[in-house]
């Protein structure tokens, strides 16, 4: 397993985890009709898509997202739940560089009659996914229905509503005050909601005060109780700064952070509104793990590119070269056979095949 990169190991363990919960692997083509993304452009993280014309003249795209394809190809069921996981490359423009990047994504989707149990199971799997990557993680759990309840009660204009939601995502209390003052409404309840974050046991009682008798809070409590029972709640924090576009997302939304990685490595939530837009009756929840970010966690840069280099001259005995290589690799060494030393190659030992056998020329070990 040592030859595998950190993120490759993560893929194996995540796939095994999802399979134990009965999630089936969802395999899809690299391409999708461009039309699917045009209709749901705002759902995508970046609106740049690599397109090309297929042999039949259809405009195709390299997948920038997996969820839309899964919804498109899923059955619209409302009495049971289809559980799938995927491990796919997506193509997006990375912020800052303005160039396309291939991103390895692992994730899962739960489509159909999504109820509190499904939400609990997805959250539990999100926690376990993060725990597989690092023990030092936090899962921030938010609920858009609760945020919407508080913002809607203000009765502000559509633009102000949108701006307020952005402020909630930024924990930007001063701008919430400014917008509410401009609209002539009292923003103290929303400010209190944004300032209320932390472990569920501390946040829930305050939440009952901010939004009393809210069905969304009751469901949040039910799900958190189940998480506590399963032992997965130790790293769960309630934090309403996790927001999503309310045109697509609703209810539970969450983000996972790992110490040492500068941005969230896991992102997910309920997207019933997207299902509605796509003409589906079934409900849905899912998440994705951004494996490209895990590279940052890999602390130990290898000191040497190879353990040994075996040099040989023209006319060297090929059998002797092979035997020398076999002898060294059998002890687990990484060995390259070269005629001359490659530039900048970092090696522990430099050996040379002579007539009387292999000789060590340099030894840095």
């Amino acid at each position: 397993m040592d030859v595998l990169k950190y993120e490759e190991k993560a893929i194996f363990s995540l796939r095994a985890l999802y399979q134990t919960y009965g999630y089936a692997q969802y395999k899809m083509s690299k391409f999708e009709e461009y039309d699917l993304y045009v209709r749901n452009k705002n759902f995508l993280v970046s609106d740049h898509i690599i397109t090309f014309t297929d042999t039949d003249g259809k405009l195709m795209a390299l997948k920038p997202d997996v969820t839309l394809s899964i919804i498109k190809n899923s059955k619209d069921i409302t009495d049971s739940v289809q559980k799938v996981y995927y491990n796919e490359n997506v193509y997006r423009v990375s912020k800052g560089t303005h160039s396309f990047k291939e991103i390895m994504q692992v994730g899962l989707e739960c489509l159909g009659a999504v109820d509190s149990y499904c939400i609990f199971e997805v959250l539990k799997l999100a926690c376990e996914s993060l725990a597989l990557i690092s023990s030092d993680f936090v899962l921030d759990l938010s609920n858009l229905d609760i945020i919407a309840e508080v913002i809607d009660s203000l009765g502000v204009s559509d633009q102000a509503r949108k701006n307020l939601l952005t402020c909630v995502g930024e924990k930007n209390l001063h701008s919430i005050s400014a917008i509410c003052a401009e609209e002539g409404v009292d923003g103290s309840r929303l400010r209190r909601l944004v300032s209320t974050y932390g472990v569920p046991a501390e946040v829930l009682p305050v939440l009952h005060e901010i939004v009393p008798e809210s069905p969304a809070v009751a469901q949040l409590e039910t799900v958190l109780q189940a998480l506590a029972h399963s032992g997965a709640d130790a790293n769960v924090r309630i934090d309403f700064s996790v927001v999503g576009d309310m045109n697509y997302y609703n209810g539970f939304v969450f983000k996972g952070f790992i110490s040492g990685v500068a941005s969230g490595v896991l992102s997910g939530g309920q997207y019933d509104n997207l299902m509605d837009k796509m003409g589906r009756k079934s409900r849905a929840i899912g998440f994705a793990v951004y494996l490209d970010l895990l590279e940052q966690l890999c602390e130990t840069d290898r000191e040497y590119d190879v353990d040994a280099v075996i040099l040989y001259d023209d006319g060297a005995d090929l059998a002797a070269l092979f035997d020398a290589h076999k002898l060294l690799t059998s002890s687990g060494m990484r060995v390259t056979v070269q005629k001359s030393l490659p530039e900048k190659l970092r090696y522990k030992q430099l050996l040379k095949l002579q007539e009387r056998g292999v000789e060590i020329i340099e030894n840095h070990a």
Partner: protein
Amino acid sequence: MLNVALPKGRLGEKVYAMFEKAGFPCPSIKENNRKLIFENQEAGVRYFWVKPSDVAIYVERGAADLGVAGKDILLEYQPDVYELLDLDIGKCRMAVAAQKSFRDNPQKTLRVATKFTNIAKNYYASMGRDIDMIHLNGSIEIAPILGLSDVIVDIVETGTTLKENDLEVIETIVPISARLIANKAGFKFKQAPIETIVASLAAQTEEAK
């Protein structure tokens, strides 16, 4: 260790004084030298001076947990960070300015010279106005004088530079001040010291009002 990106210059010095008062001193920062990174192991804090427009990048990318950046930079680059406090210092405004003789003709495409292309784009898009954007990196004020643009979108502090170049503010887009920003992941794992700083800075800001 809490990493703090401070904007080089007078504003940064002011901000450092606030952090010091909040219980995160680093005396070596006051030594007059060319060093850019200063650390106080005991207080668990490391400060570094960066170009003001780069603070948001350091914070968004996690090289700094906290930083202080002008609202202009946040609006222009829209980094994915928490904006925890309005420090109410470094106050100015983002404004549209033009020569005193300028009369807007809505039938013509408006030529706008600015360093802040995103802010200008969003502002004119919100009004449905068609513009020709001219991105400049400095000396924006001379653009209308030389006929390069009709108007400029720039930061106005006292208005002296505008006046000296025979320009005047015709519209304020948004008031600007320095904001305390935090990396989202850093906030999760260094919550206690960050909250201490936010509480103290909020109190100091309130006091100064």
